[in-house]
Structures are given as C-alpha cells and as structure tokens.
C-alpha cells in the first residue's frame, strides 16, 4: 500500500515536471495549470503516504536516508505551495518543481540502512522536520534571489526581453526572498537546537562531526545575510554572493556525511 502511494506521488511529480518543462518552452498557460494540478495531486498523495506510513509503523515515518530525502521533497513542495499561493510567481515553479521531482526520483537510487534504534526519539524527528523545512525555504530564498538578479538585469539593460515580461516586480521578489530567508533561518535554529540537545544525550564528540560543522557554517552565512539585509539594506547583487554561498553550503551540508563520514552517516 505505502509503496503504491509513494510511486503514485513520484509519478504525479514527474508529470508536473514534464508539463512545467513544456510550459517553459512553449509558453502555453494550460501546461502550467496542468503542472500545478499534477504537483497538487502529488503533494496530496505524498502527504497521505506519510500519514499512512506513520500509522503503519506507529512512529514518525523518518527511519532512513530514503525517508529523509522523500521528506525533503515534501517540504520543498510545501514551500512551493506556500510561496505560490502568497506570491503567484510562476517562474518559481520552474525551479522548484524539477527539484521536487528529482528528489523523489533520487529516493529510488539511494541505499541506506535504518538509523540505529537508540537514536530514534522525538528530538530526532523534530530535528529532521525543522531542517527539511528550513532547507526547503532556503531553496525558495535562493531562487527568489536569482529571479531578482534576472529582473534587475532586464531593468538595467533597458532592452526588455522575456524575463522583463514574465517576472514580477523587484519589490515582490525581494519580499519573497526576505520572508523565506527569515522563516528558513527560524526553522534552522530550532532544528539545530533540537539536534544539539539530542546529541548531548546520545553522542560524545558531536562538535567535530562533519555535518554538524557544515550546518553551523550554513547557519552563520544566513545569519550574516539577515544582518546585512536588515541593517544595511543589502539586496539584489550585493546579497547575491552570500545567497549563493548559503545555498552551496546547504547542498554541502546535505551531502557532507556521505563522503566525509562522521556521526550522521547511516
């Protein structure tokens, strides 16, 4: 049952990916609507899958790396919905829908063993939940920053092309950027705190774990971005470098355990 739901969700996301790609190339509005519907269905089934899995196993359905990857995909599509409902930026979907689809497809290729029984606790689930949401939001932040640069370049060049017509205003993109930056940072802080409390109980020497250090670096980068944005009004090109650095750092944090080893390697 759960396998079927999971495959169905993946399929719906893949359909969403295909129709958003067609929309991007041919600019036919119905394809974007189709992508939106497909992603909504995928998200619904995915949510149903998580609930069903949770009931079946009697605990939070986050046992292994596959679960985490799929959960991250769920978090990204949640972020996409929140941003789309609030801001109606279609271009955002062109970046986020492929990511969701790729993450889901990726789960079919990763092999991982379940995390040890001793580590399973509410702290752990809370930790993973918050961080998945935080990284999903940072991804939206990253894309919003990117779109801002595209639109800014159009406006500076004074020769409007496609982006000028299809992208929303700088003000809206900046607002989107800032809101998701702040919320992502909030979730990341909560997630890290939960992780630290839980690590204190179960592990020694967690300070030197590769993933922990990477995550702390990421956290510092976003802290710097927020500081410069609020105190000095950095946006657009000035903020872009830090935004890109933060995003690369998120990616690095996500994969760090896989090749650097450490306590997060399962």
């Amino acid at each position, binding site marked *: 049952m759960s396998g079927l739901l999971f495959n169905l969700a993946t399929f719906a996301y893949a359909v969403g990916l295909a129709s958003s790609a067609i929309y991007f190339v041919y600019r036919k509005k119905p394809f974007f609507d189709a992508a939106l519907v497909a992603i909504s269905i995928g998200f619904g089934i995915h949510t149903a899958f998580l609930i069903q899995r949770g009931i079946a196993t009697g605990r939070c359905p986050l046992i292994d790396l596959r679960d985490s990857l799929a959960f991250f995909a769920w978090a990204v599509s949640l972020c996409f919905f929140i941003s789309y409902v609030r801001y109606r930026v279609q271009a955002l979907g062109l970046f986020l829908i492929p990511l969701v689809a790729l993450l889901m497809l990726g789960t079919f290729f990763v092999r991982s063993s379940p995390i040890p029984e001793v580590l399973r606790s509410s702290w752990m689930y809370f930790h993973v939940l918050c961080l998945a949401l935080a990284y999903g939001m940072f991804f939206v932040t990253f894309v919003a920053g990117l779109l801002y640069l595209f639109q800014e370049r159009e406006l500076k060049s004074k020769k409007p092309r496609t982006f000028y017509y299809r992208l929303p205003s*700088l003000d809206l993109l900046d607002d989107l950027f800032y809101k998701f930056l702040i919320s992502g940072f909030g979730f990341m802080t909560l997630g890290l705190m939960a992780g630290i409390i839980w690590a204190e109980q179960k592990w020694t020497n967690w300070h030197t774990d590769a993933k922990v250090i990477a995550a702390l670096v990421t956290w510092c980068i976003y802290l710097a971005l927020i500081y410069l944005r609020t105190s000095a009004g950095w946006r657009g090109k*000035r903020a872009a470098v830090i935004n890109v650095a933060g995003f690369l750092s998120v990616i690095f944090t996500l994969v760090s355990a896989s090749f650097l080893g450490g306590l997060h390697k399962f």
Partner: protein
Amino acid sequence: MKLVLVGVNHRTAPVEVRERLAFPEDRLPEALSALKQDFGCEEALILSTCNRVELLAHPRDGCLRTDRLIDFLYDFHHLQPPCLQPYLYTLSERDTVRHVFRVASSLDSMVIGEPQILGQMKRAYTLASTAGSSGLLLNSLMHRAFHVAKRVRTETRISNSAVSVSYVAVELARKILGELSDRTILIVGAGKMSELAARHLLKSGISKTFVTNRTPAKAEEMAERFDGVALPFEGLLSHLALPDIAIVSTAAEGYVLRKPDMQRVVRERRHRPLFLIDISVPRNIDPAINDIEEVFLYDIDDMQSVIQANLEERRKEAEPAEAIIAEEVDAYVRRAATRQAGSLISALRDRLESICLSELEKNRTALTPDEYARAERMLRTTAHRLAHPFIQQLKNPDGNLNRYQHEVDLIKRVFQLEEEE
C-alpha cells in the same frame, strides 16, 4: 450569410485619402439611409475613424458585388471614379467576418492592441441600430465581434504592455517597486514635460507628491494642483532621500545630478531602490548613475526603447490572438451555415412531399377515401425517407466549409428551392 465590406485603412491609404472619405458622425444617418434606399443594402454599417473608413453591408439582392458600395463612396463624397481604386480593399463573406473580428480585437490597428477601436466600433453599431440599418445579420456579427474582442483581450497579453512614455513610466515603476500605493514621487522641474510624463503615475495611487523648481512659485502652483508639497530647489540632494520615483526635467544645460552625489544619496537611502526618470533634453542626469545598483535611471531614449520592445511583444502576442480569431471565424461561419441549412431542410421536405402528393392527387378519383388516406401516409413516409440522406448531409457541415457550400447550392439548384434567410 451574404456579407460584403469595402474600406480604406492606414496601410492602404495615406491620411489625405482617409480624411477625404471620413464620415462625420452627424451625417451618418443620412449616409446609412442612402445605402439602404439607393444602393441596394438590406443592412449597412459605417465605421469611420482617423485610421480607417469601412462600409459593411448585407446586399438586398443576395448578390456579393461590392461595386454599388464603391459607387456610394464616390457619390457621397463627390469624387470622380476611379480615383479611389488604388486605396480600396473589398472583402466578402468569410473574409469579411475575419476582418471585422480582427478590427474589433485591435489586430488591424496601427498600434496593435490599442483599446479605442472597440469603442469606436460599438459607437458605429449603435448609430447603425438607431438609423435602423442594422438587422439580424449585422446584429449577430457585431455582437460576436465584441465577444471575440473581449476574448482576445483577456486571453492574450496583446494590450498589456505600455506604448506611451507616460504609461511606460508606470509600467517600469511597477516592475521596480511593485504596488505604487504608499510610494512617493518627487518632480524636479515643474514644467509641462514633467507633468505629461508624470500624469499616469500620479493617477496610479501614489500617496505623496513633492515638487521642486528653480522658481518656487511654479513649484507651489504645481504642488497645489497635485495635492503635494513644494520643496526649495537648493536642497535637491537631500530631497532625493525621500522619494521612490523622481522625474527630472529642468532647463539646465548640464547635469544637475552626478554619480558621486548620487552614491552619497544611495547610502543615505540605505539602498532603497530609486526609479529616476530624466526626460530633459539635454539630459540633466549623468548616465553613469545607472551603474549604481539601486538606482534605475531612464532617459527619454530608454523609454522609447522600452516602447519598441513592448510593441514587439504585442506583435508576438498577436499570434495567439490570430489563432483565436481563426477559431471564432470558423465557428461563426459554421453556425451561419447551419442556420441557413435549417430553412433549407424544411423547404426540401415540403418540396419532396408536394412532388409525391401531386402524383396521388392525379389519381384521387380512382381511390376510395380509405385507400387514399393509406396511400397518403405511405407517400409522406416515402418523401421523408427520400429527404433523409440530404438532411443528414445538410445538418453536419463537418470538414471543408467550401465543399459544404457547394453541396448546399447543388441541392438548391436540383430541387429548385428558394430558402428565405
């Protein structure tokens, strides 16, 4: 259907010809009744704007010739034939429908997507209705045209982009600042030019207006008109910390704003974006200021280049619009054809029935009333059976409409039918 159109427009005729052919509104009733009474039109409509003069008509004798309409143009405007010949275009039937739909949707306009033409067409239709020259056919055509125009406007972006300096200013301001309510504008130089450029911006919900001018009295006067605040010209740099949008148009010979000054202003504004519009000639703002990240500087040439790009964008959007037109023309012609088929079908039934029954009538005396009644039922059924395959053909104008029209004509000719329209 039977529709014809004769006209000139901005592409086929120079303005001297167009103005010579224009119909002043107060003479339209007279012109329309002349078309009806003396030039063989059952229904007629005249569209006369500065870019086009078109006569749309449903000829009374059902013949699709346009020469009577052309005669009317010479006659009404006292012109000598054939002086109009190089400028006129004539259309009939399907092409007329397509043309009317395209004109209403502003695809045939000089500035594609401009909204006035639809209003002008509605006016022309109202005048024709009042003059009693619009009947069933033109009513249905014009209503459909208005519907198509609405579809094109809502389903494509054909009229979305701005094509005048004042609207481009609003469009750019929206692209930079988003919603314009709660935004502040500063007008530097209270002249006619800045007022023209700011006109639509000031109407777009801007919450605060500042005006500054070398002669304070003029600033005061303009500020009062726009419910704004006049500022002294001396502190221009510090004033620039206030607005989100600034329009500069002074009579100064050189730059009144230079890059180092602006860099200081930007820091003071804490990198809040500023939309700077320089409409003065010679320019008042150092173009290098556009390199500062948070400042978007547009001079009059830049605005023109946006207009050009927007026109190009409208032309691109005309493609999906043309697809809508093609679809609507097809549907309209098809409906007209089936409507025509309806009356043809009943005429055909009657005809076949009367052929069969006339045979019976000849033999009436040889039959008992009972036999007669039975024979009559049989013959009626036979007539319907015979008519059936033709009716099937007439009811389904699938595929090629031209071929369908041929079939209709053939059936009409063979059975000598005259359907009333």
